[in-house]
């Protein structure tokens, strides 16, 4: 997949900010490099309820359910970053996570019975998936490709049901919003 120069610049900026992708600055950023950066950015426009963190030292955990498309990229992106004073941690899962163990749950594209999976989750987890289908299944955020650019859409109803509050700024930037 080809990325526009703008895309590269954004990644460059993100990489610089993260100080984690110095080696990759020369290569054009891949789709999942962008998505990894977006995953981190989502956490900045989202507010979790106070009950989501037992204490300030508890890290903000990004869980990847299913086959991990990011590889080491995500780890490098979140390394050293903090959100609201919380460190970031990445967990890779093969089955539905335990309650309150994940703050962000990325559901890989290959997972089946996504609707059932999502219904079983607690309300303090921000769910991110791939494609509009994920939203219809009850996910909150979904990456979509538009004009070869990575964008995202929001299921506002799902978001409202969840205890995780999305920033209006996020809504403003979203490609489409399901109500």
């Amino acid at each position, binding site marked *: 997949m080809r990325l526009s120069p703008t895309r590269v610049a*954004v990644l*460059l900026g993100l990489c610089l*900010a993260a100080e984690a992708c110095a080696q990759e600055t020369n290569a054009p950023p891949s789709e999942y490099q962008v998505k990894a950066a977006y995953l981190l950015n989502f956490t*900045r426009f989202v507010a979790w309820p106070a009950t989501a963190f037992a204490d300030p030292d508890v890290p903000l955990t990004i869980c990847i359910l299913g086959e991990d498309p990011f590889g080491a990229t995500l780890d490098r992106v979140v390394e050293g970053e903090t959100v609201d004073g919380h460190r970031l941690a990445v967990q890779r899962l093969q089955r539905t996570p335990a309650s309150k163990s994940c703050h962000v749950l990325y559901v890989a594209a290959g997972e089946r019975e996504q609707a059932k999976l999502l219904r079983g989750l607690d309300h303090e987890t921000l769910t991110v998936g791939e494609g509009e289908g994920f939203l219809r299944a009850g996910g909150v955020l979904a990456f979509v490709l538009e004009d070869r650019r990575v964008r*995202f859409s929001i299921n506002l109803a799902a978001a409202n049901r969840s205890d995780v509050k999305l920033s209006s*700024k996020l809504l403003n930037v979203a490609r489409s919003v399901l109500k």
Partner: protein
Amino acid sequence: MRTLRDTPIRKKLIAIVVATLAVAILLAGFGIMILDGILFRTRMVRDFSALTKIVADLNTATLSFDDPQAARETLMALKARPHVVQTCLFRTDGTELAQYSREVPARACSAAGPTEEISAGDDVTLRRPVMLDGRQVGTVLLTYDRTEVSERRLLFGAVVLGTFTLASLLAFLLTAKLRGSIELPISNLAHTAAIVAETRNYQVRAEKVSDDELGLLTGAFNEMLSRIQLSDRELRRAAEELEARVAERTRELETELAERRRAEEALNRQAAELARSNADLQQFAYVASHDLQEPLRMVFSYMNLIAEQYSGKLDAEADEFIGYAVDGARRMRQLITDLLEYSRVGSRDQVWQPTHCDKVLQDVRANLSLTLEESRTVLTSSTLPVILAEPAQVTQLFQNLIANGIKFRGSEPPRIHVTATREGEWWKFSVADNGIGIDPAHHQRIFIIFQRLHDRTSYAGTGIGLAICNKIVNRLGGRIWVESEAGGGATFYFTIPAMNSATGSGPGEFSDIYGRRNDQETE
């Protein structure tokens, strides 16, 4: 051009009110304007800083998710702020994400630069980092113009001007009454003063309108007019009285003057007649005596010839008759000589000069030396003064008096003493002898010409000597008299005016004063 000083008070008052208003309103207006300018600028900086911050804040997501479209939409909202010229959003690498510009074409904008700069056209450009969770996600640039400041200034100016105009109008209307209360009494006063100055009618009075200082002024002015009126009336009366008195006095003086002139004319006429008759008389005496001398000399000479050649040749009776004729002729010659001499006193312009009487007495002593010796006369004198006179006449005066004393001597040798004493303005001279004296009954007569007390056989003489003395003393301004008893000697006194200076003065000085010279002496 008329200066403010010459304009009427009404206009001055208006000018004062308007000027005061103008100063107050303009000062206040401009003060507020300046203050507002400062405050407004501060507020504007704060406003736009805040706006920039809001724009930055609104665009954290658009920058984070690299969404130029959403960013542009956000920026388009700034259309509502007409003073925002341009806004640009930059990514962290300095590339532009989105831009809004009021103008077409848009200005170039760059992420690099100071946080605040003033560009051409008085625009201000602000640059702020866009921060998200302590990380910079981009840069926002906002340019705004400051035309609002000048717009506001213009508005303020208009308000100040409007306020001033309105205030002036109101003040003009409100002070109209007040102006009347000041202006009316003053113009009344001025009008009255003009009338008084023009007509000199002091009966006019200025109308008193109020009880303030102007009222006082009017009162004082009226009081002054009353006083002037009073003194004017008095002055007029005094002038009329004076005029009447002057007229009366003038009439009196004219009358007096006319009388005096008449008297003077009469006097002058008389004096002229007198002078003429006197001159005639003197001329007659002189001519008579002078012209008589020639035939008399003839008679005398031939009578002497007859007496010498026919003596003893005729009979005795003829000799006796011839003797009488010769004697008569001789006496006649003496008479004529004396008369000539008398008429000469005062007949010419004689020159008066300081005359030393001591010197005169010496001359007299020399002239009479033979007589003095023969009669064994003792002539003494005290110190005599210097007088202003004609020396020859003074000599004659002394000589006549001394000769008189010798002539009328008694049985003893004559002693004659001459003195002079100062009596006020006069010198009083005396010539005293021890002769036969004069009966007081004759004391006046002796000074009249040709008056003799004795027959010519006892004492020779023509009776003219004392008359000459009298004439000389009179001419010098003095008088002459005698004090004597028959057989007790006689003392002749005469007075001569003293010179102003003391007796010690020399003759030279006086010749200078009177402009006369010693060598102009006559005979």
